[in-house]
């Protein structure tokens, strides 16, 4: 637990510093509505990062989560509004697609990076088939849900806290959570203890599918329309968020709280530049710089290997 705290301490400090700069430059952000506006678009990033974390827990990687969010976004803007039952069925099929992908990777022992790369083209293609040009209508209940203003805590912060707490409990505190992380750290031990590796990997991929659907729905609610290319950027952002948040690519080492913190960091780099009056052209540089800074500091803190 001590090691896990250390892993999340660094990104937490980075996030606090970024928020401090933003509050110092623009104190009005430090309010219920200011924070809601600032963090609204963190919801799809948080869900995408949580989905990516489930895959990384298996020492796999998902290069398709971004286009998957696009696909869900397009389903929400077409089928879900016109024929709700068909739309819900399509979303369930999307989750089933992830479960099948996990099974395929396990049974044929295929590299996840290639299968999810192939899947990314499939998701993007299906999204374009549903909605060749941006548009469509998102059901009213979804836009209402995205603009819901709970008392006390702004919605995006509430979503982050709930995802982090649920992830932390399910993956780190339950016995089956330990089995799931075992897929990435010591699959042979898991198998010898009588657990099905196939079922565990399918569970992780299924969870990623559900979280991806939630991310796509959040995106649809915020944008109030569909766009087949809107999710592309979320693939790499989600991987970066999970790793900045303290996870490792290999060994089933993940930190659910860290993934949420990482998602907020990746989102805020963009806003930070606007608040200190730097052109948005440098946003990618800021994201790259923060990645290098946090990971470089983490390695330095641990000392030479």
């Amino acid at each position, binding site marked *: 637990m001590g090691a896990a705290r250390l892993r999340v301490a660094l990104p937490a400090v980075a996030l606090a510093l970024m928020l401090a700069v933003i509050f110092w430059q623009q104190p009005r952000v430090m309010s219920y509505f200011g924070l809601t506006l600032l963090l609204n678009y963190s919801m799809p990033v948080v869900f995408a990062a949580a989905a990516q974390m489930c895959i990384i827990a298996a020492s796999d*990687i998902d*290069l398709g989560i971004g286009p998957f969010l696009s696909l869900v976004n397009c389903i929400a803007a077409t089928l879900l509004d016109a024929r709700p039952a068909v739309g819900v069925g399509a979303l369930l099929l999307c989750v089933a697609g992830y479960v099948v992908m996990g099974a*395929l990777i396990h049974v*044929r*022992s*295929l*590299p996840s*990076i*290639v*299968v999810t*790369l*192939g*899947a*990314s*083209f*499939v*998701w*993007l*293609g*299906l*999204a*374009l*088939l*549903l909605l*060749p040009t941006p548009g469509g209508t998102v059901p009213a209940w979804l836009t209402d849900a995205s603009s819901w203003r709970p008392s006390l805590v702004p919605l995006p912060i509430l979503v982050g806290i709930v995802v982090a707490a649920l992830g932390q409990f399910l993956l780190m505190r339950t016995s089956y959570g330990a089995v799931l992380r075992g897929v990435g750290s010591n699959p042979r031990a898991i198998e010898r203890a009588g657990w099905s590796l196939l079922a565990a990997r399918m569970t992780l991929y299924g969870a990623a599918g559900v979280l991806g659907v939630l991310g796509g729905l959040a995106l649809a609610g915020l944008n109030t329309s569909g766009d*087949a290319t809107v999710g592309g950027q979320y693939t*790499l952002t989600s*991987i*970066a968020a999970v*790793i*900045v948040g303290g996870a*490792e*690519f*290999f060994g089933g080492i993940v930190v659910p709280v860290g993934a949420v913190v990482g998602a907020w960091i990746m989102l805020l780099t963009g806003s930070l530049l606007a608040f200190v009056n730097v052109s948005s*052209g*440098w*946003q*990618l*540089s800021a*994201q*790259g*710089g923060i*990645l*290098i800074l946090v*990971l*470089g500091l983490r*390695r*330095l803190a641990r000392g030479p*290997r």
Partner: protein
Amino acid sequence: MATRLMGARGWLARQPWIWSYLAALIVWGAIVVVVHGHGAIPTLSVAVQVATFFVIVGIGQMLVITAGPGNIDLSIPGVMVLAGFMAMGTMNGSDADLAAGVLIGIAVGLATGIVNVVLIQVFTIPPMIGTLAVGFILQSLAIAYSGGHSQVPAPALARFTTLIVSDVPIMAVVFVAVTAVVATVLRRSVFGRSVLAVGQSPRAAYLAGLRVPGTLAGVYLISAMLSGLAGTLLSAYSGGASLDMGEVYLLMSIAVVVLGGTNIAGGQAAVAGLWGAATLLDLIVTMLDVMRVGAGLRYVVTGVIIIGVLAVAK
């Protein structure tokens, strides 16, 4: 008879590059049928010409991936874009500055490669994140450098990239020769054997006295320099650089390597397969274009073929 069949299967299993050529041939056959044989050969030569750009970055990505699990170069698109803009800026439409422009493009790659290696080896940042971060920074440098406006290439370089003599794309011929050199280096040189050995087991390679960090540094430097060259040539081919020209190369560089038969887990490379895979990916686009199928189905088919070839070749 049975043993001969077994022998054939064993031989096939050792030639993972064959599948990409087979798939490319099938797709080309489908195109020939759809267009009733009209322009079958020119279709192929244009596909091979465009495939050359995939192959150039694919060589680098292949060497990086072959050096073992976790090794990947995601800075390729960023290098291509910045190298393209700076090379065009240097050439500015004049043949006199052609060589300087190409050198600037490759130098952008070399500088990037050095930064990648420092991040990966000195700061021990995972390659996927380190190269991704560097790629992000290069992309914003390209925005700052160009403001989105590109100068035009040297006319001679533009001609070289677009020249097709009796259905043979000249640029492709040059890079087929480069590919042959890479294959020979992998098979015969100390560096090449080191890349394969490090990819199979870094520890065993170290114990065998191979220079593991030097080998890893080498593949990242080569990949970045080839990306710089590819960005320069692609800009010349397109009449100028653009900010989004690198985007497809992020995932396609990996797809070309894996479809070509290289083991994504490292330690085994299939150099010849790069051409089959790159041509296949281009022919898929052509096929669905002549069938008047929209972009949506095109992506679905591409994805299914990537997963399908992988599942079959395994």
